[in-house]
C-alpha cells in the first residue's frame, strides 16, 4: 500500500509525516527516535496498512520537517503540538481512535502525547524506550548509566557539535553498529544532518528534568500498554514492571532476544506482538 510523505505548515514551520493505509480506519501513529527519521517505521507500517490508517511524523530536521535554531521546537510539548496538528489534519473531526507506537526518544514522546489524547487512545506500544520518569528512576543503576554514555556527551555544550563536524560518519557508524542496526539499513541512514538536529531533541528533553511540569502528579494511564525490549539493546537495560509504577495501570512487558532497532531487525515478530496485543485488548481497526 502506498505510503507517502505529506506536509503542513504548523506554527510557522513546515512539518512532515508519512501517511498511508486504510482511509477512515483508526489511526496507528508511529513516533521515531534518535537518530532516525520516520522511514524507520516503513516496514512495520506496510504490515498494518491494510487494516489501519498509518502515520509517522518526522521530527524537526528529518524528512521535509524544517528545522530551526534553538531548542524550543524540540521540547516534548512543542513536538506534541506538531503531532496534534498532524492528527487534526488526518482526522479533522477528531473522532478516530488512536494507537501510539514509540521507539527510543519517540517512546518518551508517545508517553507524553498519550496523556494528552487519552480519551481517544486505545493502546500504547513502547519499543526500546522509557518514559522520562523511568529514565529518572534509572539514575541509580550503574549499568544503565554506562550504557547511556553518549547521552552525557550530547548534553555537553559545543563538543558534540565539533564532533559531528569533524567525524560525523564515524560517530554515526559507532552508534548504528553498537545498536545493532541491520546492515542493509546503515548506508541509507548516514544522514548526518538528522544526527545534528536530533541532538537538539536530547538536549531539550534533558531540560525537562529541570521543569516543574515533569514532576507534577499525573494520573496513571488506563489504556493498555505494551513495552517491548531487546535483551541486547546497547543503550537501554530492559525494563522491569516495577519501573512502571504510577505510569500505567495495565502493562504487558515483553523482553525478546534482539538489539535496539527491533522494528527493523525483527519486523514480522514485532508486528505479531503488536497485533496479538491489540486483539487481546479488543482494539479494532
Amino acid at each position, binding site marked *: 500500500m502506498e505510503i507517502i510523505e505529506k506536509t503542513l505548515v504548523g506554527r510557522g514551520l513546515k512539518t512532515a509525516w508519512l501517511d498511508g493505509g486504510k482511509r477512515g480506519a483508526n489511526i496507528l501513529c508511529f513516533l521515531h527516535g534518535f537518530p532516525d527519521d520516520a522511514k524507520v517505521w516503513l516496514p512495520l507500517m506496510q504490515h498494518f496498512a491494510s487494516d489501519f490508517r498509518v502515520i509517522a511524523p518526522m521530527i524537526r530536521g528529518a524528512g521535509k520537517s524544517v528545522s530551526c535554531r534553538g531548542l524550543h521546537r524540540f521540547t516534548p*510539548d512543542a513536538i506534541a*503540538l506538531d503531532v496534534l*496538528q498532524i492528527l*487534526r489534519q488526518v482526522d479533522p473531526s*477528531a473522532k478516530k481512535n488512536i494507537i501510539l507506537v514509540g521507539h527510543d526518544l519517540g517512546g518518551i514522546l508517545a508517553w507524553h502525547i498519550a*496523556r*494528552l489524547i487519552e480519551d481517544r487512545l486505545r493502546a500504547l506500544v513502547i519499543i526500546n524506550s522509557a518514559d522520562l520518569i523511568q529514565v529518572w528512576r534509572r539514575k541509580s543503576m550503574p549499568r544503565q548509566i554506562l550504557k547511556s554514555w553518549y547521552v552525557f556527551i550530547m548534553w555537553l555544550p559545543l563538543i558534540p557539535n565539533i564532533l559531528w563536524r569533524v567525524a560525523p560518519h564515524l560517530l554515526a557508524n559507532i552508534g548504528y553498529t553498537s545498536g545493532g542496526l541491520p546492515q542493509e539499513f546503515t548506508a541509507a541512514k548516514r544522514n548526518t544532518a538528522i544526527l545534528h538536529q536530533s541532538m537538539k531533541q536530547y538536549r531539550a528533553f534533558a531540560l525537562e528534568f529541570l521543569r516543574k511540569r515533569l514532576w507534577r502528579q499525573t494520573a496513571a494511564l488506563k489504556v493498555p500498554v505494551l513495552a517491548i525490549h531487546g535483551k541486547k539493546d546497547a543503550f537501554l537495560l530492559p525494563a522491569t514492571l516495577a519501573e512502571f509504577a504510577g505510569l500505567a495501570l495495565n502493562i504487558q512487558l515483553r523482553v525478546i532476544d534482539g538489539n535496539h532497532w527491533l522494528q527493523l531487525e525483527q519486523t514480522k515478530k514485532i508486528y505479531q506482538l503488536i497485533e496479538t496485543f491489540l486483539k487481546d485488548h479488543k482494539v479494532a481497526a
Partner: protein
Amino acid sequence: MNSDTHMNSSIEVGFRKAQRLAYDAVECVATEIREGWTEFQATDLVKTYLQDFGVRAFFHEPFAWFGDRTRFDGVKTYADFSPTYRRFTHDTVGLLDVAPIVNGFVGDIGYSFCKSPSKEFMQAMGELQKLRRLLPTLMNEASLASTGGSAVWKLIDEKIREDGYDNIHRIYPFSVLGHRVRRLPFAALALRSPVPFSWHAVLSILLKGIYPDLLGPSHHGSLKGLWAIEPHLGGDGFGVKFEEILVVDDKGARWLDDNVPHARQEFAVSSRRMRAG
C-alpha cells in the same frame, strides 16, 4: 505628538500583532483540549505555542480555568487563580487567559470556550457581545466628559446584574474591568517574579502608579490610551469573559481589532435571563 492622545499607527500595529498571536495560541490549544486535560496541561501548551513564535516574556503567564473555576468559585487568595489539576470535561466551560509580550507590545487576551455549547453558554456569550458593542460608546462618553472610568465600571456592573448574571471581574484584584497596556521596556528579558505577573508588569505599575492604570470602580483621570478590557460574567456554575484592547484617543474609542474570536460569530442575545432560585 503625545502617543496617548492620538494613537500612533505603528503602536497599534504592534499591539494588534501581539493580540492576534495570543488569540491564535489559545484558539489552537482550545481546539485540541480534550476530556481529562488538566489546567496545567492547557497552560503549558499555550506557553509552548507562544514560545514557538519567539515569545520570551509574559505580562502574565497563561491561566486556564475549567468548570466552576471559570466563575472563580473557591478562589480566595491570589494563588488560587493559578492553574490546578482540575480536569476538563466535554460539557464544561473553559477559559484561557494569557498576556505575551511581543517586541514590547502586550497582547493580553481572554478566551471562553465550550466543547458542547449549552444554551446557557451561548446566551452568556451573547451578553458579552452586547457589552462589546456598548463599551466603546461608554468609554468615549466618559472620556469626553472627563468623568473617568468609574462611571463606565458602574454602568457595566449594572447591565450585567440587570441581565441576571454575576459580575465576576469584581473578584479580580482591584475589581478591574480593564487595565492600561503600554509598550514595555526590557521586553526581551524573561524575568520571572514570585507572582504570575512579570517584573515588567510590576515595574510598569510602579512607574506609572497603580490607580490611573486600572479601570476599576474608583478610576478617575484620563481614559486616553490603550486598555485591555475584560468583562467577566458568571452564570450558574460557569463564567465567560473576553479580553481585548480598546483604543481611546482624539478620534474616539474603538476596538483595536474586530477579527477576534468572540466577534466573528453572532451569539443570540436572550431576553433577560431568569436566575434559578
